[in-house]
């Protein structure tokens, strides 16, 4: 399904937010710290990690909802830099937000919500054309035309998320950042929306950056998966590869923490339960950010951030002690008390 051509290339992206730590003193919160990756045309790249790891910030910074502190965003071979480039980029790249309740304006009708990007970019000549396009978009996401003049509060969560998706599709985008689009939905509705993402991708040849914390959902929808921890990318590989053979100790424990909906497997599973909490990104550990919770951490991990390098074809990982990590099999159950 995915071609070889890179649609989007991110190079050394950094996003620091200034945080007040006293009178006239600020400290940078490194939400995204030197992240590089590519997304091929037609593929879905899943981005996973726990809260505060910077996955949402990556998505928003790519669309430049936040101005990147530094780094390059290269779309279709061209860097997105000037205002004109950004305006053109935003016609090709849109976003679906997490919360279908707060991301729709309660005072607008569904057709106005969906048509807003059309209004902004001036993508129609007549009222009739606008209406026609709105109805077309609604049919893409399985909404009836009679819903057009209703308000968002009249819809259930799943239907609202459909409205949000129709809005994202309005400008005929090539690339969509999906920021936790199904995590607010019930299981039975979630599956409907996931299938819809699949169908739309096929029909409209879309490329997705799919951000989520639900690893089962991400595995289902993604071609490749990237794992983030405290602003850094720690591993990136094909979806199946990362599930069957994760290399980074954080990916290993993250994947083994997912409760599998299968009682027999759950009973036999050896889980790696991590100690402690995720440190605050304001006081991120020196060197490798994972070292404070890592069962394999050694002295040199505090020294420098391990390089994010390709260890096998298409499998990138950032860890100083890969050999030791891979020589120890799973089944290492760490339990313990928390510090800090």
């Amino acid at each position, binding site marked *: 399904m995915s071609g070889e051509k890179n649609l989007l290339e991110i190079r050394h992206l950094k996003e620091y937010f200034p945080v007040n730590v006293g009178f006239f003193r600020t400290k940078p919160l490194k939400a995204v710290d030197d992240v590089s990756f590519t997304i091929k045309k037609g593929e879905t790249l899943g981005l996973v990690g*726990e809260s505060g790891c910077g996955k949402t910030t990556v998505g928003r910074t790519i669309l430049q909802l936040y101005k990147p502190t530094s780094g390059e965003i290269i779309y279709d071979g061209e860097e997105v830099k000037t205002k004109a480039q950004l305006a053109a980029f935003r016609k090709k790249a849109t976003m679906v937000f997490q919360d279908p309740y707060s991301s729709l304006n309660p005072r607008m009708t569904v057709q106005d919500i969906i048509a807003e990007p059309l209004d902004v970019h001036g993508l129609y000549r007549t009222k009739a054309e606008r209406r026609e396009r709105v109805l077309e978009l609604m049919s893409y996401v399985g909404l009836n035309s009679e819903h057009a003049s209703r308000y968002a509060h009249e819809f259930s969560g799943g239907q609202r998320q459909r409205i949000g998706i129709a809005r994202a599709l309005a400008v005929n985008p090539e690339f969509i950042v999906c920021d936790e689009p199904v995590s607010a939905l019930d*299981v*039975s509705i979630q*599956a409907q929306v996931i299938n819809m993402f699949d169908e739309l991708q096929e029909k409209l040849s879309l490329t997705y950056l799919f951000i989520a914390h639900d690893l089962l959902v991400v595995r289902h929808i993604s071609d490749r998966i990237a794992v983030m921890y405290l602003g850094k990318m720690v591993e990136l590989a094909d979806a199946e590869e990362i599930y069957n053979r994760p290399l980074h100790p954080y990916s290993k424990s*993250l994947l083994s923490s997912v409760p599998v909906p299968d*009682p027999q497997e759950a009973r036999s599973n050896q*889980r790696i*339960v991590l100690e402690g909490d995720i440190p605050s990104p304001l006081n991120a550990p020196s060197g490798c950010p994972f070292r404070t919770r890592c069962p394999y951490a050694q002295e040199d991990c505090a020294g420098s951030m391990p390089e994010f390098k390709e260890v096998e074809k298409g499998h990138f990982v950032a860890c100083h002690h890969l050999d030791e990590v891979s020589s120890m099999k799973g089944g290492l159950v760490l339990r313990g008390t*928390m510090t800090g």
Partner: protein
Amino acid sequence: MSEQLLEVNDLHTSFFTDAGEVRAVNGVSFRLDRNKVLGIVGESGSGKSVTAYSIMQILAGTGKIVSGSIKLDGRELVGAGEAVMKGVRGNRISIIFQDPMTSLNPTYTIGHQLMEAILLHTNRNKQQARERAIEMIRLVGINEPEKRMKQYPYEFSGGMRQRIMIAMALACEPDILIADEPTTALDVTIQAQILELMKDLQKELGMAIIMITHDLGVVAQMCDEVIVMYAGSICEQGTADEIFYHSKHEYTKGLLRSIPTAENNGQKLEPITGTPIDLLNMPKGCPFAPRCDHAMKICLRERAKRIQINEDHQAGCWMNERPDSSGEEAS
């Protein structure tokens, strides 16, 4: 071997709103034995939390237990009065809530809040309560309990706050712990810690847990027995293995099919069609019938009684009463 602690029989709980009566719990019956973990799964609005709140009798203003019985050790709790319930809550049955961020009072120290619960429910004096609080903080795996006693909730992370809530709930050694989506607000690695902790404590203290969740993964991992709820009623009930591997209700089957797993990876998911039910306009027959692919005429007219599939399994679905349903069912 199994000692019955709690028995709920034909429980009906409604909320009387301006828009009409919302039947949140509609004829729920189950029993809970000592040392068991019972999972209640369902989607939003299925009545799983209201069932728990009914047991504790902590329903919001408009909510009321309309009929049914809740027996703890054979003693009726419905209509027993506030005085009796005060003796039950915290002492015999404790509850922890979904959101550890809002369940603690931000203006008091952790120690104060833990001691308050202990002083209220036991005869300990202040010094003993303090010792007990410190012991509990240690028990849930937090270092330096003396120092932690003096800290405020904002100084704790989400996972640690949930640990404190567990410490508080267990401080008076209840027989039953109700956990209402205890890990939904937490990250997966923290969720794994909390679930491990709950399992360990359950074994150590020998209590029963009612685990309310929408996450079938959590159920598979934690629960001995499972109740599946939809629109205020129990669809199906049985041991975890029976529910996951030999499901006999179309809703449970649909729910299991709609989650992404290793098996259906790369294929289309099979979602349950339609939208969740409106509790104000409940259909006459099976509440799931409007969304069910196999709905028959009788499903729209009448609700199927729960029948015993085998010793460990009950389900209420007309599909099981068809003459050809005895063997392996084609889904």
